[in-house]
């Protein structure tokens, strides 16, 4: 309280103050960007002929695309102080529903954009529905988000298997696979362009609109937001709905990319999406976060996966590394918050 001795105090934000540790953790986004550069440099030095190639960079970026789309939604959810564990299997569920819808008129291989459009709408609606369920349970029924989304994780996974009979849908319109999934424009894959578009829209929404301001306000102090006249319940439902909608869109993109629903391939999506958001500087305590940070965060698992394969390590090491980085990121965030709280 000594800082208050003179009323118009200057803001105690002097970068010269505090330890090296405190200064470095203060800028989490810069820090994680350096880690990403370090990883790229490391793999490039270890395998100069295989890692830093146009083909590999494109593969990393394309692999990361669907993950980036769901991580953008997860960013909003985590900024409200919540969490969405269900995104990975909502993605799968939406992909399965879209696949079923596109197969409803017989072999979809030669079908055109109208069938693909139907698949997109079905995927978006399926994701949105799960998001609304999550939002209603968190905001209205006041069940902790960890439990709600753990429950919907299991439910969406189970229902995806029931709907598909446990069999992957292997036929999608070839136009969808060749244009959306594998197509490029001036060398840049459509998947990457679409994901970048979602990330840009997300960052604009978060920083420039009332929706973004309310998201930060609710996460920063939900009681203050309620007293300020914000309908906190409605806003939380919208944020979870957005997370579900983007998971649905991610399911559609994933279907286009893999040309199959890959029922067994989404076990790590939750870990990777949440890790990307948290590594990117979004605080689990809520109120703080950026989509730019999340975008950098998304590339950590992708670069690790690619790098481990190229240097000949088992790909499973990626999960070990991402899990460890996630814990370190949260630890550093808590230290930063603690330092701030002592003011």
């Amino acid at each position, binding site marked *: 309280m000594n*800082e*208050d001795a003179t*009323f118009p*105090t*200057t803001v105690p934000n002097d970068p010269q103050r505090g330890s090296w540790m405190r200064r470095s953790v203060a800028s989490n986004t810069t820090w994680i960007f350096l880690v990403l550069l370090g990883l790229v440099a490391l793999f490039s030095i270890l395998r100069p002929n295989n890692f830093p190639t146009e083909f590999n960079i494109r593969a990393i970026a394309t692999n990361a695309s669907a993950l980036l789309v769901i991580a953008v939604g997860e960013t909003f959810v985590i900024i409200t102080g919540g969490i969405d564990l269900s995104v990975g299997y909502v993605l799968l569920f939406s992909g399965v529903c879209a696949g079923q819808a596109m197969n409803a008129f017989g072999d979809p291989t030669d079908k055109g954009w109208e069938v693909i459009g139907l698949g997109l709408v079905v995927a978006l609606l399926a994701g949105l529905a799960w998001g609304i369920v999550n939002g209603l349970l968190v905001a209205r029924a006041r069940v902790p988000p960890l439990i709600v989304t753990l429950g919907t994780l299991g439910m969406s996974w189970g229902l995806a298997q029931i709907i598909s009979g446990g069999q992957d849908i292997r036929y999608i319109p070839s136009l969808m696979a060749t244009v959306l999934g594998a197509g490029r424009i001036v060398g840049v894959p459509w998947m990457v362009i679409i994901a970048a578009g979602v990330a840009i829209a997300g960052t604009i929404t978060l920083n420039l609109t*009332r929706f973004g301001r309310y998201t930060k*306000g609710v996460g920063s102090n939900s009681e203050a937001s309620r*007293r*300020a006249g914000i309908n906190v319940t409605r806003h939380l439902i919208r944020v979870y709905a957005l997370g579900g909608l983007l998971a649905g869109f991610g399911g559609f993109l994933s279907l286009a990319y893999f040309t199959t629903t890959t029922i067994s391939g989404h076990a790590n999506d939750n870990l990777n999406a949440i890790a990307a958001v948290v590594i990117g500087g979004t605080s689990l305590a809520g*109120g703080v976060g950026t989509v730019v940070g999340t975008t950098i965060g998304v590339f950590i698992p992708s670069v690790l996966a690619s790098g481990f394969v190229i240097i000949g390590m088992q790909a499973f090491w990626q999960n070990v590394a991402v899990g460890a980085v996630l814990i370190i990121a949260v630890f550093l965030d808590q230290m930063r918050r603690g330092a701030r709280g002592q003011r």
Partner: protein
Amino acid sequence: MSEPLLQARGLVKHYGHVEALRGADFDVHAGEIVALIGDNGAGKSTLVKVLSGTERADAGEILLDGHAVHIGSPFEAQRLGIETVYQDLALAPDLDGAANLYLGREIVRSGLLGRLGFLDDTAMRNGARQAFSELGVDLQNAQSVVANLSGGQRQSVAVARSVAWASRLVFLDEPTAALGVLQTGRVLDVIRRIRDRGIAAVLISHNMPQVLAVADRIEVLRLGKRVATYPAAGTTVDQLVAAMTGSLEQVAPVA
């Protein structure tokens, strides 16, 4: 005497088995500073919460300009021109001063962008700067998030927000509890300036000399009821303490 701006009659509020208010009355007139005092647990904060819409009374009525009103939420209180500075400040620490000032009442851009919810941050920063300077609050870095401000600056933001939006009445729950001598003086000046605009101010405080210095009238709560009301002029700290602790019941007639 003219009709009170806001009156409470026989408010009752239970929290489980605890009776926080047991038929509390309260009056405040336009352009008046009323101090609400009482020992811990007397029901001061509960009364303010009921009058500002964050809690609902179990019984009793609230009259604004002599007409019964229902204040079911902070939002409804705000629409009636009633604002509150809460003891726990109720700021969003991760947003800057301007964003907090306009929280829930953001200015959006004109035209299509506005309809899409795009914020006009320049207008809000200018408005905030004006609101702060009107109150003599010097917030040197308006873009700094509230978490990085000192206790006095946070208090200033909270007070400025309420004053900026209040058209009738401001409740201030222990607004100087966390402040040093100098900022306390500033906040009390702000309260006087609120009154000079014709707005009523209700101040909860434990600091008796401060109460006597700034208030026009003092209402004393004890065990969830109003037990006394005094004009500040001519009243002593001893009288207030006696009324608060119950060693005296209504030693002076209601003004």
